[in-house]
């Protein structure tokens, strides 16, 4: 993103290096990203727009879309709050055991999604630690929405924190310290100094976590119970359709996930572009005076 002013010629690569690097990057993106995505849309539209749209307005698909959005809407703010708190503690302070803490935060990434689902079964299943108590009190956690939210929280746990930690470490805490010395309160410093500095990293983190929350299959599959029209998220619904040999429906629902991700990203680009324009306008105004 060109949030920086135009750089001078001396810090530019020669054109042929530029072209080589761009070409290689695009080939890589093409082979591993673009073509698979195009093929998803190609499969979805294989039998025409009508079938594509029909697959999406199906009752089960709609309830799956709703459940997916609700799950993400609960999981993302929780992990966002955590991510900011963790990054603040880790990046702005020096304390013992920091690497251990960071590693523990990373851990959910390396846990196989299936195991991530299994651990909640071990906790809340009929034979789990809290299972008998939950059953006595008629509270449903797994095979219901709370279980799906918990599994999603687990798999998207590290995203925001991990996005922010390296960024905030690279930025250091000089600006915050200056603000504090000048008499700003802790919250003022955070809102006025830190947040503007980390907003893009924060946004990336949220977008990544959101994409993953909506796309998670393995962990959710273990705790969902697969009750059609009730506890199926979009990815689970996709699997069902695929197993029904309804390839158009399966890929149509998958493409919805891709589109949702694209919408959030378009939104991000728009915000970025607007911010850029505003600063440029301000600069132009300042120059004119």
């Amino acid at each position, binding site marked *: 993103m060109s949030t920086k002013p135009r750089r001078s010629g001396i810090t530019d690569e020669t054109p042929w290096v530029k072209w080589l690097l761009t070409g290689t990057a695009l080939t890589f993106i093409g082979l591993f990203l673009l073509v698979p995505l195009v093929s998803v849309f190609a499969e979805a539209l294989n039998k025409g727009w009508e079938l594509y749209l029909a697959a999406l307005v199906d009752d089960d698909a709609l309830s799956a879309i709703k459940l997916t959005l609700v799950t993400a809407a609960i999981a993302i703010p929780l992990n966002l709050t955590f991510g900011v708190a963790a990054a603040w503690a880790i990046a702005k302070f020096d304390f013992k055991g920091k690497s251990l803490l960071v590693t523990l935060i990373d851990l959910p990434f390396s846990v196989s999604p299936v195991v991530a689902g299994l651990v909640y079964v071990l906790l809340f299943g009929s034979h789990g630690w809290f*299972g008998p108590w939950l059953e006595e009190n008629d509270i*449903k956690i*797994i*095979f219901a*929405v709370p279980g799906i939210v918990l599994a999603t929280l687990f798999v998207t746990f590290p995203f925001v924190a991990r996005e922010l930690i390296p960024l905030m470490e690279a930025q250091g805490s000089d600006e915050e310290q200056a603000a504090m010395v000048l008499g700003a309160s802790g919250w003022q410093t955070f809102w006025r100094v830190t947040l503007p500095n980390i907003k893009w990293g924060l946004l990336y983190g949220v977008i990544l976590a959101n994409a993953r929350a909506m796309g998670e299959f393995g962990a959710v599959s*273990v705790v969902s119970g697969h009750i059609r029209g009730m506890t199926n998220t979009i990815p689970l619904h996709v699997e069902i359709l695929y197993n029904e*040999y309804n390839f158009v429906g399966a890929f149509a629902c998958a493409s919805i996930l891709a589109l949702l991700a694209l919408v959030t990203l378009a939104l991000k680009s728009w915000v970025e572009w607007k911010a850029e324009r505003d600063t440029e306008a301000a600069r132009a105004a300042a120059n004119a005076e």
Partner: protein
Amino acid sequence: MKTRLFALLPALLLSSHLVQADATLLNVSYDVMRDFYKDYNPAFQKYWKGKTGEKVVVQQSHGGSSPQARSVIEGLQADVVTMNQHSDIDAIAERGKQLPTNWATRLPNNASPFTSLQVLIVRKGNPKGIKDWNDLTRPGVNVVIPNPKTAGNGRYTYLAAWGYALKQPGGNEQKAREFVAALFRNVPVLDTGGRGATTTFMQRNIGDVLVTFENEAEMIAREFGRGRFEVVYPSISIEAELPVSVVDKVVDKKGTRKQAEEYLKYLWSPEGQTVAAQNYLRPRDKAVFAKYAKQFPSVKLFTVNDLGGWKAIGQKHFNDRAIYDQIAAANAKKK
């Protein structure tokens, strides 16, 4: 920050609350049965409404047979379970203690209202001349079978081949073992589920033969077109019993025993059996079978019980380091 977390908790708990109709049944089933219950549930609802005036809502849950059984054991509130092998319902009885161990005797026909069998699906014109199980062990023939460790479909195929080899003149366990080992040497891809194997065969164009259930052949025809493959009935095959049961602990708690038992019994009614036949599941009812005999060629069959029953089979063949694992390890070394 913490207050936000706690403010959300009630919302989480409330959202798990289910909307109740007159009576709601949850049928926890396996993947392939979707089409069948899509047709059967409305038929039962109509019958039940006519008989009692009560409206029954049937919710469906589908997945792999064993994972579904695990979910029921861990608390998924299934009123009825409809699985693809007895061992899955046995596990619910033994591990979950949610139904009595003699569940299979509570309904006719070993509690399976219909059956299927393993058939061979070959490419159009049968270019490799596949006629029977022994053709699958020929060098140069590639066979697509789902992983017996993760798919009931794969287990049935393994057992069908095992039984075929046993029943050949001079057949014994050693020969059966060699035969099955030779068969699995010809498997290029082990998909985790039956439908994945079908996709590998039909869409990826991998393999000369796909071994799967008879009713699956019809589904393949509907989706991929009849002209693209042929069904070969082997000289002998295994009868796949597809068992059903009420989950006693759940229906007694929910007060849905009456509806759940009727829901299963109605599977044996002429209407239920007809829906089965229309979905290419072999009905138990002789009259219905006769009506649809054209689509069910007669094949010599043996059953899982002829091989000692699922429990013994599991220990002997499919548990860790049992015969299937030994064969797989030996085959991997030979490569």
